[in-house]
């Protein structure tokens, strides 16, 4: 245990010393920076001192690599995600395209609900989410941390509202329906706890997911199984 705490205070990569810290997420610190003349975001997975350094290094390395890999895989398949500009593996920093003027789906839904819009007005968005996720799963990308905070909307002048996926740190590649089912289960729980009284919205999402992917029936079946496991679990103590 002593060693875990013995890791000396982190050294900030030189290029982040002047950078603007935007926020500290669960995984990383996020900075705004100029990179080769473009405005970029740097995601720094700094060492987490609460966990054993061996575990920390393993997780950090794996997640940095996995995030980049899955973003590339998604973008190749035409799924919107930020462009990766550069990766610094020695400091576990990823340089990403800044999605300017975007808001999270979470903020969008909350704003719609706060302004008294009907749930029906959000059906279109839910359907879009379902289609994007179906496409991602058809590429065998499991996001691993699907929430409405990890989806961005970027209003365009044309009136379009493309949906981007971000935060692929927990992602992995798998063709198993079970993994895809759990991915949707994680989203369902996060969705319903974050946005009370939106059950119909999530239903819409699943409907469009099902319509968009040939492999959906097996995934939905697994989703049902995982839900049932949760409900059947004894809760002693």
């Amino acid at each position, binding site marked *: *245990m002593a060693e*875990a705490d013995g890791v000396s205070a982190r050294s900030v990569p030189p290029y982040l010393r002047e950078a603007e810290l935007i926020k*500290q*997420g*669960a*995984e990383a610190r996020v900075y705004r920076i100029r990179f080769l003349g473009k405005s970029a975001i740097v995601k720094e997975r700094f060492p*987490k*001192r*609460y*966990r*054993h350094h*061996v*575990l920390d290094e*393993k*997780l950090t390395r794996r997640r940095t690599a996995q995030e980049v890999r899955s973003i590339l895989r998604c973008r190749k398949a035409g799924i919107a995600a930020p462009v990766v500009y550069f990766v610094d593996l020695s400091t576990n920093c990823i340089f990403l395209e800044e999605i300017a003027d975007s808001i999270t789906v*979470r903020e969008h839904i909350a704003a719609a609900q706060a302004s008294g819009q009907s749930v029906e007005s959000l059906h279109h968005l839910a359907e879009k989410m379902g289609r994007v996720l179906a496409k991602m799963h058809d590429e065998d990308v499991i996001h*691993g*941390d*699907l*929430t409405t*905070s990890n989806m961005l909307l970027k209003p365009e002048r044309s009136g379009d509202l493309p949906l981007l996926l971000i935060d692929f740190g*927990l992602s992995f590649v798998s063709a198993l329906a079970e993994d895809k089912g*759990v*991915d949707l*289960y*994680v*989203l369902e*729980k*996060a969705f319903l*706890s*974050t946005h*009370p009284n939106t059950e119909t919205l999530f239903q819409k999402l699943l409907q469009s997911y099902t319509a968009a992917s040939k492999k959906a029936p097996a995934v939905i079946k697994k989703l049902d199984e*995982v839900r049932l*496991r*949760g*409900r059947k*679990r*004894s*809760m*002693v*103590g």
Partner: protein
Amino acid sequence: MTVVIGFEGSANKIGIGIVRDGEVLSNPRRTYITPPGQGFLPRETAKHHRGVILTVLREALDEAGLKPADIDCVAYTKGPGMGAPLVTVALVARTVAQLWGKPLVGVNHCIGHIEMGRLITGANNPTVLYVSGGNTQVIAYSERRYRIFGETIDIAVGNCLDRFARVIKISNDPSPGYNIEQMAKKGKQYIELPYTVKGMDVSFSGILSYIEEMAHKMLSSGQCTAEDLCFSLQETVFSMLVEITERAMAHCGSQEVLIVGGVGCNLRLQEMMGIMCEERGAHLFATDERFCIDNGAMIAQAGWEMFRMGQVTELSDSWITQRYRTDEVEVTWRD
């Protein structure tokens, strides 16, 4: 002033506590301890509770210096938990409520933990990590519910620790978790174990089956000590718990964490959570074994909140339920 007596016995502890407007007047408890290698079964646990419940009730009243007439409401655990022990405790609660002519309030066990934690620590609107033998949940309050943002998708963290203790025959006295914690302090070597986090959810069944399969081999070959295994298991599962708590905090924009439930009194878990909080300028709230571990006062405290809002449970509706999700309860006492 409102005085509520609370009855708890959903697992292997039987506790009866009395709370008067936020003050714990008494909180006696007994634990059913099984031999090393054995877990507690519903029937035997119910028998244990049945054998001591009236003594514990007498203690609760005497320590508080109260007579039945001073009590305003009788609260009991409606669920979740093991059926037979829940029934045993509910029977006594129903009987005294009628004998003393007091209203009855059925309380969700998990809500009891949360409300007790809030009372003792003064945490206002925390992200709650609820960790015990039967539950692993990350909870935050919004719009009249304690909403579950993350939880285990298979077994509870306490169940994982208890079952590991059984595999290498660690004593259940005072609790397997306590003994693992003490042994872990002497662990030197970190053994890599499966680490499974899915967003704000966790899974412990993989790590348990891995360690169940490997423990004896590693111990007999001298590859590591039992202390190393305790250390490595704690470091791994607690890291998972801190990670999902932090993720929920980032998602909800919360700057407070409250740890409740039996596993919550583990000082290493509290230490790790404290470091995470420090790194993000957040505040950690935790309690000690008196209130973390199942007890009667927590049921009294949640019952007190409910009773003050005019909620009572009719006798005919006072059945117990083994499954009772935290988010089923409408939280009428918070804005």
